[in-house]
Structure formats: C-alpha cells, structure tokens
C-alpha cells in the first residue's frame, strides 16, 4: 500500500515540477507588467516541437534543446515587441486579451509549420525504470526534478544578486518609482517575456520524452500552470513552485484514490476552495513584498 502511495507521490511531483516551471513563467511576466500571459502554454509547445524538429534534423539532443530554447526565446521577445509593446498604453485587460489572441495565432502557426501529429522526443538518458521504495520512475523524471531545482536556484540568484534581476523586482514593486530611478521599464518587460519563454521551452523539452508533444499540448499545460501560479500566489517564485508541486500531487492522489475521471475536478475544486479563503494564494501575501 505504501508502495502505491510512493508511486502516486512520485508521479505527482514529476508533473508538478513541470507545472511549476510554467507557473514561474506566468509569475515573471505578471511581475513585470501585471499581465497574465495566456500564451505561456504555447511557449511550452514551441519548445517541445522545436526540439523534436532540430533533433530530427540530426542535431544531438543537447544542441537541439538549446536551439529550441533559443527559438522560443526569440518568439517570446517577438511577442513582446510586436504585440504587447505597441499596446503598452492599453489597460491590463486589453493586454491579456492580446496574449490570448497571440496564443491562438501561435497554435495555428505551429499546426502549419509542423503538423497535427503527435511527436516523440528521445529520453535524455534511457528508459530503464528506476526502483524507489517499491515505486518506479523513468530516468527522465530525475532530469525534470533536477533541472527544475537548478532553474529555481538560478532565478533566485538572478532576482536577488544581479542588477538586472533587482531592476525587474523594482519594476514589479513600483513601476513609476523604478522608472524615475532610471530603470528602463521597456527593457525589463522585454527581458521578462524572453525569460518566461525560455522557461516554458525548457518545461516543454523536459516533459516531451515522457508525454510526447504536439501542436496543441500548450492549452492544457498552460491552464494547469496558470492554476498552479494562482494556487501558490501569482507573482511569487516559491509560491509557483509550491503551487505546481501541490497541483501535481493532488491530481495524482485524486486519480489514484478517488476516481481518475474526476481528477481534474478534484484539483480545480481544491484550488477554488483555497482561493476563496486565501485570495492571494498560498504564498501570495508575502509575494507583494518579496518575489
């Protein structure tokens, strides 16, 4: 019985780590612009699909992954330059609607540039299952968890120890004051889209060997990532990680112990309950002071 529980937890943590990466992307853009970027899921999709393409062209996997992250970052920067920046005077709601439009456009382009089929990506280090306390995981799970941990550490370092990171933090606290201090809000905004796109791409590449990738995977991953960000507290870094892991584990336990048909319902119901009692999310309140 405990082996079963261990399996549910490991499964939940793996998918939860991916939700966390997507949620971090939401948080970074939210902090810089107060916009919820609904194209975040598409970054995940583009990352995975581009990696499959580059790998198919004969690039070794690490290079294909780097190239895919590069491409996605460019898409993120282009999105900011071409769609968000020209409308910077508009209200936040307008900007959010623009990102929804962009996500539909990106999805459509992906189905044309690639196709509507499902594609596999080879696992980074084989598929031989690893036994942990009676539960089994694939080596890719370790990659997902490890890379997510490294990303979180790097982000923490960036936001707390580098000037660019501190500038981004300053903009999230008070845009006008930051501008008066000589911080280029426009450049911060651009950087936040690039960073969020790179994170999304990384999530897409990490998860593709486990779940495959296709032109429309961004919808569900984006939604789950958003839910995780809300659960943890939008804009909070630790909150995004906590929210992602919690969502993954709740889903997995729901599917395992209650009913697989209702696992999404269970997860979203818990999120609703949390948000009713803690509108800022689990770590939301503190996050307005610190990211």
């Amino acid at each position, binding site marked *: 019985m405990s082996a079963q529980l261990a*399996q549910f937890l490991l499964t939940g943590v793996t998918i939860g780590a991916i939700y966390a990466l997507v949620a971090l992307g939401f948080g970074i853009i939210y902090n810089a612009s107060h916009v919820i970027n609904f194209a975040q899921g598409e970054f995940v999709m583009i990352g995975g699909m581009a990696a499959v393409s580059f790998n198919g062209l004969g690039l070794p996997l690490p290079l294909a992954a780097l190239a895919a992250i590069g491409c996605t970052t460019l898409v993120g920067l282009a999105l900011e330059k071409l769609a968000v920046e020209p409308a910077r005077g508009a209200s936040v709601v307008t900007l959010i609607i623009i990102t929804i439009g962009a996500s539909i456009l990106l999805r459509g382009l992906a189905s044309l540039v690639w196709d509507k089929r499902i594609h*596999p990506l080879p696992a980074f280090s084989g598929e031989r299952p690893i036994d942990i306390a009676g539960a089994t995981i*694939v080596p890719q799970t370790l990659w997902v968890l490890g890379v997510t941990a490294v990303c979180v550490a790097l982000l923490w370092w960036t936001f707390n120890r580098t000037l660019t990171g501190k500038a981004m933090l300053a903009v999230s606290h008070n845009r006008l004051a930051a501008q008066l201090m000589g911080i280029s809000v426009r450049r911060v905004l651009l950087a936040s889209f690039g960073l969020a796109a790179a994170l999304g791409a990384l999530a897409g590449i990490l*998860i593709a060997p486990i*779940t495959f990738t296709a032109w429309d995977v961004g919808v569900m991953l984006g939604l789950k990532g958003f839910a995780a960000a809300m659960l943890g507290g939008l804009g909070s870094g630790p909150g995004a990680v906590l929210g992602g892991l919690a969502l993954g584990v709740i889903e997995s336990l729901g599917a*395992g112990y209650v009913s*697989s048909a209702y696992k*999404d319902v269970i997860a979203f119901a818990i999120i609703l309950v949390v948000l009713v009692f803690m509108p800022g999310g689990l770590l939301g309140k503190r996050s307005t002071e610190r990211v």
Partner: protein
Amino acid sequence: MAIRSRAGALARRLGLGVVAAAFAISAQAADPIRIGSFLAVTGPASFLGDPEQKTLELYVEKLNAAGGVLGRKLELVVYDSAGDAEKARTFAKRLIEQDKVDVIVGGSTTGETMAVVPLVEQAGMPFISLAGAVVIVEPVKKWVFKTPHTDRMACEKIFGDMQARGIKKVGLISGSGGFDKSMRAQCLKVTSKYGIEVIADETYGGGDTDMSAQLTKIKAAPGLQAVLNAGFGQGPAIVTKNYRQLGISVPLYQSHGVASKQYIKLSGAAANGVRLPAAALLVAETLPDSDPQKAVVVEYKKAYEGKFGSEVSTFGGHAYDGLMLAVEAIKKAGSTDKAKLRDALESTRGWMGTAGVFNLTPQDHMGLDLTAFRMLEVRNDDWTLVK
C-alpha cells in the same frame, strides 16, 4: 434515340410516377451509372474522408478503363461534408433529388450517416455507409448497409484471444473521447460471452500526460491477468510507456484504434509484446499465401500506394469495399433499379473485401465476422501475426 424519345413522350402522358421507371429503362442504353457520395474530405475527420475519396476516384477510373459495368460507364459525384451532419444531410438530399444517383456510397462518420438515414429510407435509395458504429445497422434499416467492422467485433476478437490464453480477470483503462467511450461500452457488453471479468475500470482525460496513477491502481487489483486499453491518439502510447515503467508483467492489449505505425513509433521499445486486433490490410504482405484475403488486400494496397504515394489505411479500404459491393450488386441485379439493387446487395454471399468476407442477410446489413480482424503482436518494433 428513338426508344428514348418514345419513352419520354409516353412518360409525359402517364405522369410523374412512370417517368422514373421509363427513364430507367431507356437510360440503360447509354447513360452512366451514377454513384453518389458525401465524405469528410476536410475537417477533423479528414483522415477518414481523404483516403475514402481517393479510393473511390481511383476505382471508378479503373472500372471505366475496364469497360464500365453492364456496358455503362460509372460516374462519381462526391461532396465534401467536412464531417458535419447537417451538411451531409443537405448533400444527400441533393444526391437524391438533383443528381439522381443510383446508389450512395459514403458517410465517413457515424454522425453524418445517422443524419442521412431518414432521407434514404424515405426515398428508397440504397446507401452503403463507411462509418463504424453498431447503431447504423442495429436495428436493421431496409436501405442502409455498412462496410467497416464495429467496436464490438474488436472487443470480441480481443476477448477471444484472452480466452484462448486462459485470461479471465481483466483491468480496463480507457480514454474519454468518443471512440474510447463507445469501445469501452461495447466491450463491457460482451465480457460474459467470453467468461471475462472486468476487475478494474479506469479512465483518463483527452489531454492527460501521465496515466501511471490509474495503472498503479489497476496493478493493485487482486488476480489481474491482463489489461485492455480502449483508446485513440497519444493516450495509448503513454499508457504503454507507463505500463512498462511500472513493471506490470501481465499482457497488455490495445484496440484497433492505434493500429498504425505511429503507435509503435511513439511508444518505442515499450510497445514490444503488446497485442491488438487490426484489419488484414495493415499486414497485407505478411499474410501467408494461403490466406484467401491476401490477394484482395495486396492488390488494393499496391494500387493505392502506387497511385498516391502515401501509406494505405483501413478507411480507404472501407470505401473500396463499399464501391465494389455496389458494383457487384448492380451486376447481379442486371440493372440499376433501386429495389433490385438493394435486394441484390442484401443477398451478397461470400464476397471478399479488404475488411474480410461479406455475407449480407436481411438480418445483417454489415455481414462481417471476426475473421475480418487479425490479432497482431508487436515484436522488434514491427507487427507480427499471432498464430
């Protein structure tokens, strides 16, 4: 020409009822036999409609090159319904009233087919559907026939194989799509016939990326002897990978919904050992020469792949079967009189198509038995025939 004009003059005097009959008599001399069709050539079901249309065009061309049927040329009228039941209905009406076709071979999806059933029944138009569900021919409708095998037959094939291996306790895992749900329901209906007991019944959502929680639950079911996955798309491939990851040792069965090379490509090495039922067409070359179906499927596969350069699918095969059944019935009836054509269609016996032997009866408007399906096992990343 003389006969024609006299027939026309007579018809004008005797009124509408006779027009059709007189026209039919006179038409036999020169007019083409008109085959009507509406298919989901574009839209979400285009993977069905596209090979179906190509197949119909290819074979009408071939038949005409060989001199046509009853000395008359065939003429194909195809409309693209895009999988929309409402459009299908409009086009069927046009086929019946304006194009005045002799028989309809079409309807890629069950939705389109069922929308058209009342029209053809009322008009007395022989209609051969290319869609899958059992409801099309159960209960039997006088003018409606179909060529593809059904979900239930796939279930029976799988359970038959399990029975032969002494498997009694089965875990079921299925997706939440239309195909998945329908197959799950049909499978549950026929379990008792094969002495199968479903001891776990799990589902997963369309966009789900991990099924190990569901499979862990199934694995824990006491006495589990095999697992059946009723699914379509990427779900079954993820199930297959998770299945191996969890180290579940009992046999895994998949449905005919993933009987394509894509499934093996996605699942990789994890697919080895998986069994699934599939149409003979997919393994045309590997069939033994003694197999009575081999000649038909190899001929169709070569013709289709030679002409279009893309891999053959069972869906195009359903269109081949539909068209050829209609042609056989027209030959047998010796005319395109709709009632005679229908009766001839209903009395088709022992005709070999890509889906198997058709034995149509007044009680069975599909006429296929389980030989239509072959049990395959994935070995060394390729299909192998079981037994």
